[in-house]
């Protein structure tokens, strides 16, 4: 999508209300601003030094005029405050029939999980004309989910679950930005909200029209990156069998035990020397810098799928 942006897209039920208040504020500012400008320009010209304007009976104080002017201006302004507050309160009232999405923000990507367990990275498919509630958690620092076309924004705070809801009114693909500075690749922490018709969405969800599930893609990576060369019953290398690892304790060579959670799986791939499994040689190479972050997530999803007893889903 190129060309010149001249106005933001308006693609949700919240957008028209926002745009109306924005317009009102713009109108208020323009009118008052022009009045101020007129005072300065007109008097600047009329009363310039040496002009023949009437300067009799000048006033240096007029509290009545002052309070009246400020009073009228702020009566209008406080009306705008009230309007803004009323729009804001709407954020707390999720309409009935909403679909729920679990959103996770981490440096530097978005993960969205649908009700049926389907996960997406940096993309969120939603149906049009249906309220969507996204429950947001962060795995590290504060992020912020921002979709300008929907006029929604909510900070994602570690240690809290925050929430954002919207109801899209147009199909199409809309920019998603991270709006709270979160470190090196903050500018790249972007994505798309893809709004589809109800029918298309239903089809997409059931057949995952975009292709394989995350876990299936992870299985492909497991083979293409060579992990199966050691971990899948290799005749020459002795490496731990990864079936049933996720979600269970792992005995380490340091004589401690650790729970094999998401972080353990990631560390084992990126920093395999950090925690050596008991009874195995520390010969696994590090894949740090060799795997893209979203590929890493797919591998983790695949490994999680190898433990049927464990529940899917990342760390809180």
């Amino acid at each position, binding site marked *: 999508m190129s060309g010149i942006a001249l106005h933001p897209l308006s693609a949700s039920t919240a957008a028209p209300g926002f745009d109306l208040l924005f317009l009102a504020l713009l109108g208020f500012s323009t009118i*008052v601003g022009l009045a101020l400008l007129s005072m300065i320009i007109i008097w600047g010209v009329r009363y310039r030094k040496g002009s023949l304007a009437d300067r009799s009976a000048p006033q240096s104080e007029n509290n009545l005029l002052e309070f009246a002017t400020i009073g009228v201006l702020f009566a209008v302004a406080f009306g705008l405050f009230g309007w803004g507050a009323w729009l804001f309160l709407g954020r707390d009232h999720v309409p009935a029939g909403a679909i729920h999405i679990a959103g996770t923000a981490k440096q530097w990507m978005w993960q969205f999980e649908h009700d049926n367990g389907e996960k997406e990275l940096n993309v969120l498919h939603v149906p049009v004309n249906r309220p969507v509630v996204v429950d947001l958690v962060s795995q590290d620092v504060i992020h912020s989910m921002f979709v300008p076309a929907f006029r929604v924004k909510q900070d994602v705070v570690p240690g809290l679950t925050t929430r954002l809801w919207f109801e899209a009114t147009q199909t199409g693909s809309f920019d998603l930005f991270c709006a709270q500075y979160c470190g090196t690749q903050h500018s790249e922490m972007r994505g798309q909200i893809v709004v589809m018709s109800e029918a298309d969405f239903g089809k997409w969800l059931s057949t995952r029209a975009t292709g394989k599930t995350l876990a299936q893609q992870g299985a492909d990576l497991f083979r293409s990156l060579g992990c199966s060369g050691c971990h899948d019953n290799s005749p020459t290398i002795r490496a731990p069998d990864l079936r049933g690892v996720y979600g269970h304790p792992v005995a380490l060579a340091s004589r401690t035990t650790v729970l094999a959670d998401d972080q353990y799986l990631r560390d084992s791939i990126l920093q395999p020397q950090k925690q050596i499994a008991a009874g195995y040689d520390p010969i696994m190479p590090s894949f740090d810098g060799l795997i893209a972050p979203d590929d890493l997530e797919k591998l983790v999803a695949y490994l999680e799928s190898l433990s049927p007893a464990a529940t899917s889903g990342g760390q809180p």
Partner: protein
Amino acid sequence: MTVAAPDRSTYFAEGAGLRSWLLTTDHKRVAWLYLVSLTFFFFIGGAAATLMRIELVTPQGDLLTDDAYNRLFTIHGIVMVWFFLVPSIPATLGNFLLPLMLGAKDVAFPRLNLASWYVFVFGSLFTLYAIIAGGVDTGWTFYAPLSTVYANGHVSMAAAGVFIVGFSTIMTGINFIVTTHKLRAPGQTWFRLPIFVWTLYATSLVMVLATPVLAATLLLIVLDRLFGIGIFDPAKGGDPLLFQNLFWFYSHPAVYIMILPGMGVVSEVIPCFARRPLFGYKLVAYSSIGIAVFGFLVWGHHMFVSGQSTYAGVVFSFLSFCVAIPSAIKVFNWAMTLRKGQISFETPMLYALGFVGLFAMGGFAGLFLAALGIDVDLHDTYFVIAHFHYIMVGGMVTAYMAGLHFWWPKLTGRLYSEILGKIAAGLAFLGFNLTFFPQFVLGWLGMPRRYHTYPPEFQVWNVLSSAGAVVLALAYLLPLCYLGWSLFRGARAPGNPWGATGLEWRTTSPPPEDNFAIPPVVTGPPYAYAPDVTE
């Protein structure tokens, strides 16, 4: 003090060597020490901004790496906020003029004054070293847990440096408050004080009460980062929002530290060049204090979408609309001062009128952001950047220029080139609007802050903004040249080249070391201008 023949020597004549400057306790020389340091930091912060704007000409991140860009906007924020804007008018014009405006020989604690400059220099250079040597990329806002747990670089050192500079601010604030209470000339009651003194006083109140909270917050950041005390780390039971509340409890009043003195300057310049008393003087005085007080009550408007409660948001939004009232009173009164005057448009007046317009625009943008429903969309976008640059650059820096040009004859005894002054003022006004108005559009379109790559459809607005930045840079380099030139070749200035009221104009330009040959006595209200019917 016996009455002697008027002292003809100026404060420059009391010593010319480095020692006489570096060990001075004369408030006028301390003001110059600050002026030199602050100008240095202004151009450092400006250089960072220039590099950022060059990067933003293209949608891709092709000039700078992610880390380099993040460090640049951090440098820009830290340097501009703490090493330029906060001290600017108070430490330079305030230091020079406060005793003069009060009819005093110096501030209440001259040695404390000099010490405050040394503390400032030490802290700011320490921070600058930390930033350049190791890089800090947290932004000037140091949000936790990014700054405490995840950020690499010299965060602790930078925070420590800012902590040190905070002491300088507190020292200045204490000095100004006590000076204003204890060293006014005979006959100078509170309501005969110029508004510049009122705003410096209000600024000093905020300085002494808000800065310690920043000190506490930075201390906690450093402890959390170095020792892992966990106060802001949710993994240890801490609360990231606690950081935001503590940080903004200081940082919002801090923006009033930055703007109040500018309002004071404008309140001196407009009456002088309109030849009219300031309209509604008492209300302007009260509103200065009002801004200082209300400024402490609105910090939560930086946190509407942070996870703060909706109820808190409503309260803070309401109070934020309230805090606009005293500012609106001032803007109205400045405009009303023009009525039935004899207005001339010398350089200081051009800057002052520019201030009124640009500050008003920034203020309207503030109303947008204070409105909860609108802030949800505009928060953390370029709209916010445009808002505070309209206030800080269009307002504060413009007022600083106005004050510098207005009092330059008093500080130096020289006159600068009026033509060049007017050209620079016009260039600044045009360059400023070209730089920052497109940023309102960008924010409305949805471009987030602190992004160095962006969707291509935002490009045209970014290009306009960067072009404006070039013009603005020129506009700020020009005064450096002609004001510097005037120090050596400028025409000698008389005691009162503008025909202004105010006690500082009743002595020579520049003043002697003890400020007044004969200590002044105040017998009437300030701004005793009356328009001449025929000129």
